[in-house]
């Protein structure tokens, strides 16, 4: 593996956007048959670099070599023609079209006169799907698939051409474990065929499981390459964020207050059934389960976005019905939603206005918005959450993902809710910001908030929770205290193996 010609080599890539130097002279190479991890904080420039490789952006400076031949790729099609396949971070699918058309998007097989050769298209697609062991076929409409299956469609594209290099940009963010196994098999296959693979992820355990080398970017600059076998998480983190992380948890015992929220036998159609749990002031309750287990739906129901079909919700011992988010907010419940871009932020608005949006009616001077009060709220939470933004006037859409997430969290913290629900608070967030957010959630509990954390990442739940509720298929399977929980019994609970309900 050492003295081969690289499958792919980058030299001094520079890419600027108006006002941002996203890539600043990045060079590294990927060998054939190697899985090469690319790591870096949010906004470090990973996706931008890959878009340059995929022909979506043209670099301002620098050169790209494929099999040591200098190549210029003006558009994605040319990149494909040169053997570079790109599996995107954000799902990039046409939902109304069939799986086959999506997989071969942009290069449908032809007969004469530009007519699509459907027979060939379906045959080829079915062959690929066979390899991926998925439960749908070439004619299925993509929009009817689950998010995880849509991600598999995206991945299937990697197999359509004889690629020299394949780029996976955070492919596992929404895959379940069984699909992850299939994905890793596919990667191993490609590797065996001598394809060079670039793998981007924020999840250390995956990185250490499947990659051969790790290259690190920081603020658009190349920081070095490490051999996976010879390094450890701490070293990588050092390189990424310039310091080590203190992963120890603040375990100072907190005086638990009275029950803040109690849910009894709550159901909502087929989404979840008979959920019973409670959370106390000063406590962090974790919700763990596979994607699609119904945790988000419980949160949405508590926040008034769904109407429960049965069950009771009690706040501080009093039964309440919650009909809308407005109602929920008035009663002291806040939800940091799962998808910050769609549900959390008005991307075209500035930081301050986003942060004070839920309370804008209360921040008034006469009939007007009290802008001074808004700014002081913003400043307070910017300092507390260490938000990195040029000023409160900055449009939120221009912030990096982690900072956007902090704005959403700040938006709900500043409401001083009695019950704070956070849904996947660190999805797509780099390790540095992640631990900041974890500490923050613990601090909140220490101040007497009741916090519910929903997450699909086991380390996260284990790390922040005082108690953990395990869900499977719309049901609460078991409740663990921090003391009794282990990775094994948690996995059993959420995969439906252990049937003892909590």
């Amino acid at each position, binding site marked *: 593996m050492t003295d081969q010609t690289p499958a792919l080599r980058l030299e001094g890539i520079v890419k600027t956007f108006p006002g941002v130097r996203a890539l600043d002279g990045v060079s590294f190479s990927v060998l054939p048959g190697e899985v090469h991890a690319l790591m870096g904080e949010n906004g470090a420039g990973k996706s931008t670099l890959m878009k340059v490789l995929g022909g979506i952006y043209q670099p301002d400076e620098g050169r790209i070599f494929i099999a040591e031949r200098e190549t210029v790729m003006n558009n994605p099609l040319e990149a494909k023609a040169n053997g570079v396949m790109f599996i995107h971070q954000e799902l990039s699918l046409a939902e109304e079209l069939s799986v086959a058309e999506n997989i071969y*998007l942009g290069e449908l097989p032809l007969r004469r006169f530009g007519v699509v050769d459907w027979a060939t298209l379906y045959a080829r697609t079915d062959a690929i799907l066979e390899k991926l062991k998925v439960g749908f076929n070439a004619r299925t409409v993509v929009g009817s698939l689950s998010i995880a299956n849509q991600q598999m469609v995206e991945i299937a594209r990697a197999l359509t051409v004889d690629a020299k290099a394949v780029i996976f940009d955070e492919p596992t963010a929404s895959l379940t474990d069984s699909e992850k196994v299939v994905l890793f098999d596919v990667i191993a296959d490609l590797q065996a065929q001598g394809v060079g693979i670039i793998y981007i992820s924020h999840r250390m355990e995956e990185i250490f499981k499947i990659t051969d080398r790790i290259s690190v970017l920081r603020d658009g600059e190349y920081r070095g390459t490490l051999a996976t076998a010879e390094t450890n998480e701490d070293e990588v983190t050092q390189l990424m964020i310039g310091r080590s992380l203190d992963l120890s948890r603040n375990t100072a015992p907190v005086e638990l207050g009275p029950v803040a929220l109690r849910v009894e036998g709550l159901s909502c*159609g087929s989404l979840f059934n008979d959920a019973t749990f409670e959370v106390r002031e000063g406590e962090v309750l974790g919700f763990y389960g596979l994607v699609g287990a119904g945790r988000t739906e419980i949160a949405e129901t508590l926040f008034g976005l769904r*109407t429960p079909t049965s069950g009771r919700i009690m706040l501080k011992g009093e039964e309440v019905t919650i009909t809308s988010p407005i109602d929920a907010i008035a009663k002291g419940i806040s939800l940091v939603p799962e998808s910050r871009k769609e549900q959390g932020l008005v991307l075209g608005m500035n930081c301050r206005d986003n942060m004070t949006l839920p309370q804008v009616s209360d921040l008034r001077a006469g009939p007007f918005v009290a802008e001074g009060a808004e700014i002081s709220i913003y400043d307070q939470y910017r300092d507390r959450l260490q938000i990195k933004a040029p000023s409160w006037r900055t449009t939120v859409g221009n912030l990096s993902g982690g900072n956007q997430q902090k704005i959403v969290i700040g938006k709900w913290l500043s409401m001083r809710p009695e019950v704070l629900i956070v849904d996947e608070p660190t999805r797509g967030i780099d390790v540095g910001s992640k631990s900041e957010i974890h500490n923050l959630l613990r601090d909140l509990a220490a101040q007497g908030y009741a916090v519910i954390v929903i997450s699909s990442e086991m380390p996260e739940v284990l790390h922040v929770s005082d108690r953990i509720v395990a869900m499977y298929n719309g049901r609460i399977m078991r409740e663990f205290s921090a003391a009794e929980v282990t990775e094994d019994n948690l996995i059993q609970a959420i995969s439906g193996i252990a049937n003892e309900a909590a």
Partner: protein
Amino acid sequence: MQQDRLKNLLSSGAIWGFIVLELIFFSIAGEYLSLSERAFMDLDNMLLLLKQSAPIGIIAVGMCVIMINGNIDLSVGAIFALCAIVMLDSMSWPMFDALGDWVIPVSACLALLTGCVLGFINGFIVWKTGVDAFIVTLGAMLGYRGLVFMYNGEQPTSNLNWTLVDMAEADILGVETPAIIFLVVVVVVWLIMSRTVHGRNAYAIGDNREAAVNAGIRVGPHFVMNFVLIGFLSALSAVAFYSASGSVNPNDGMLFELWAITAVVLGGTKLTGGKGSVIGTFGGVIAIQLLRKGLGHIGADSETVNLVIGCILIAVLFLDRQLNRKSTGELKV
């Protein structure tokens, strides 16, 4: 899967159900209210319906393509008028004197070419400037209309050529020329949209433009092609219609864009693009024309016609949404 298909059929079939309802209603109401001896659902009357649907129908087919592609074109009415002027006026240009009746195909081709050029201008602006098609074509609606007026002041442009009229009124098995053109356009464009790469790419672009770009589809040229197509179809509609009438007012074709859009939406095409069908649009056009014809048949007065058409439009939209609603677990957002 099976259920999906059923739902799809139901939602795209809504327009046909509506047409059947109209037919039944007007047939029965016609018995009581109409002065005519002849039944509403008479074959001749239905053939006439097809012919009368042609002018807006041909344009609506183009609009369907544009909307599937994720754009909109508000300038079709002005293109229609401008192409008509080119056709009728060019027939009397001195340089074509020698051609005799052969001037007809030459003028028709000139008109079609004009349509393509006007469409190209729109498409090119959308592509190169990145200004939204709604704004570009809103501007063009004014601009092209201005050109219509500049061409011949405020006078109508006329050229009544009986050979041409006879050609336009010729029929095959009772189906007259404009109706034939309309049907051919529907079939050809349907084939393009469902069978060719261009058609499938147009769907993909309308569905998720970024995905299409990422997959290496050149979005701009597809936009331009579709704008050229709708320009061409607007011109074809003008050729078909003005062959049989021979005179164009500078105001002709106003509001055609709104009726075409209405037909397309009634036909089940998603306003945001990515989903829709030419056949459904055909249904939408027929449904509107049937409504007009039927209301005339039973003697409704003009204010009622306006009121009814407006209300039906909203009602169909409402029903369509009920049918297409995600069945379970929709968030209250």
